[in-house]
């Protein structure tokens, strides 16, 4: 294998990891506020459909990405009204959101099946991007990759170093105490949920705009669920999540390259790798991490404020 091939493989690992990072960092914030939104897959696929439609019509990747974010936020807002406003069951509502999202994406994307457009441009820094082996990986990715990493940095800083971040964590760990202290629990959670929806929508748009620059029904293929698993795998810590996403990106990319190399394994076995890897990762985590779960204490429990 020459250095170009290695570089190509590394880049494909990063691009496979990017949508997972974006969706998972959003869900991490949501879960840190105590809300479990299982609708990531649904918001992602609607983001992919709407993002592609908007980008195709406007001929602008940026507008597509913004439309994807807006679509994800709209669905998240609906979810938030139900689970935060009406205190419905979070697991069931999240599932409903996924079912709805898959259906809506099919409706919205129907006129765009089979259409193609240019992918997003890559960063190019003269000199740096031409370094053998790592130049393109570090300095020649598409801009979403850098944005995703910046987003993780901002979220990590926000959660650990700001007052608002502390408030958000307090709400997620004990909503009754936070409420008694006068923190607007439901408003904090609403905003966190909207942020998560925007991230999921952007992650979906990345898939239809950059990763495979076209729209096809069901194209997110369970990545929303893998993002949910990543949050658990990362023990709700932002930077661990990047490491986990690269691992999964590696599994996805490895599967593609193994198919290209013509490994004597059935294609279906290769396609099953990311899902099996997710289960294996969750199992490994629970074996190693015996100290108990790092989950936010109030995660998934409904909150009805007393007056």
């Amino acid at each position, binding site marked *: 294998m020459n250095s170009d091939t290695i570089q190509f493989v590394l880049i494909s690992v990063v691009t496979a990891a990017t949508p997972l990072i974006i969706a998972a960092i959003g869900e991490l914030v949501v879960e840190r506020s105590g809300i479990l939104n*299982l609708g990531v897959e649904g918001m992602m696929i609607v983001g992919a459909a709407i993002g592609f439609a908007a980008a195709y019509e406007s001929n602008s990747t940026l507008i597509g990405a913004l439309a994807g974010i807006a679509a994800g936020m709209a669905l998240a807002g609906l979810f938030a009204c139900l689970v935060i406003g*009406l205190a419905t069951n979070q697991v069931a509502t999240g599932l409903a959101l996924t079912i709805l999202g898959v259906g809506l994406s099919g409706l919205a994307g*129907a006129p765009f099946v089979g259409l193609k457009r240019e992918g997003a441009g890559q960063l190019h820094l003269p000199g740096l991007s031409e370094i053998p082996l790592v130049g393109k990986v570090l300095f020649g990715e598409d801009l979403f990759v850098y944005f995703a990493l910046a987003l993780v940095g901002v979220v990590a800083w926000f959660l650990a170093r700001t007052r608002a971040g502390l408030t958000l964590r307090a709400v997620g760990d004990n909503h009754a105490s936070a409420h008694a202290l006068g923190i607007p629990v439901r408003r904090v959670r609403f905003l966190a949920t909207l942020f998560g929806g925007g991230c999921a929508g952007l992650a979906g748009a990345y898939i239809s705009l950059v990763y495979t620059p076209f729209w096809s029904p069901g194209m997110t293929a369970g990545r929303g669920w893998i993002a949910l698993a990543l949050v658990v795998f990362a023990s709700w810590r932002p930077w661990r999540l990047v490491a986990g996403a690269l691992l999964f990106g590696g599994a996805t990319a490895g599967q593609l390259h193994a198919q290209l190399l013509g490994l004597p394994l059935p294609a279906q076995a290769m396609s099953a790798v990311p899902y099996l890897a997710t289960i294996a990762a969750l199992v490994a985590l629970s074996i190693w991490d015996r100290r108990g779960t790092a989950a936010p204490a109030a995660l998934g429990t409904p909150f009805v404020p007393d007056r």
Partner: protein
Amino acid sequence: MRIDLEPRRGRQARLEVLAPIAALALAMAIGGLVIALLGKPPLRAFEVYFVEPLTQGWSLQELAVKASPLVLIALGLSFCFRANLWNIGAEGQFIIGGLIGGWLGIATQGGEGGRWILPAMLLLGALGGLAYAMIPAVLRVWLGVSEILTSLMLVYVAELTLDYMVRGPWRDPKGFNFPVTVNFDEDATLPLLVEGGRLHFGVVLTLLAVVGAAIVLSRTLFGFKVRLVGNAPRAARFAGFDDRRLTLAVFAISGAAAGLAGISEVSGQIGQLQPSISPGYGFTAITVAFLGRLSPFGILLAGLVLALTYIGGEAAQIDLKLPLDMTKAFQGILLMCVLAADVFTRYHVRLVSGRGR
């Protein structure tokens, strides 16, 4: 603007009956709005979806045949959901049930036949679904791994396994390269109830399961435990109920039910294995379970309603050129409406002006 929830005292039997009906009406109204936005006539769509399938003999049979797997899966899921466990991988257990049971159908094709084949297929299907549901259950009980994520991941694995088997080792060598297995012999096919019709014996199995589930839930200690663990987990722990065994038991029930539904579909409806054997029954059954308020007879009614959306969806695709995805979107909206309506049975809901807290 904010929403205030004030708990109601006691159970509201009348509201509990009204809530799903109101939810269905609301979901239809929202669905009509979506259809109008797509530029189609909503009233005509209502007719195609919910009225016309009820007016013809063949479509009534079709309704029962489509409702059967939904009801059977949802019955099993209701045990899990009542115990606050989230098996959302029924789709995978359905597929594995069809796959394992279908194996016998393929193995006995062109052989001597015999009356033992069909019961053995059904048993294998149920056991296949059960075994597949045990994976998330065991991982949860022993290692504390979230059953939600593992059961869902296994759906994709099941789909890929079925796809591989029918395109690879089990493909019919005389099938002109179509990715299907051989057609099962008559001894491996569920008998029809009406000569020349669609109604098959699987529907009877489902009706028996409804009665069985109703008896287990209301008349046995096990049913009481399931309800108690879900409603009052602390009380259940004080009573000394072993929630690990209960977790395994409800997963076993739901897996077996989904597996049985899978092999009934394969043996009664399709007659062979093909790359896809379910239009998402395992996921729709979640909506069925909640619309039926997790009670067996409620699930029976809810299964018929959701089956209607499948048949109506196919008709609307031809009649109104509405994409099949409309059905899925409607099912999602319906589940949301059901969950929202349920809140009104437990709380007084008030809209209050002022800033939300």
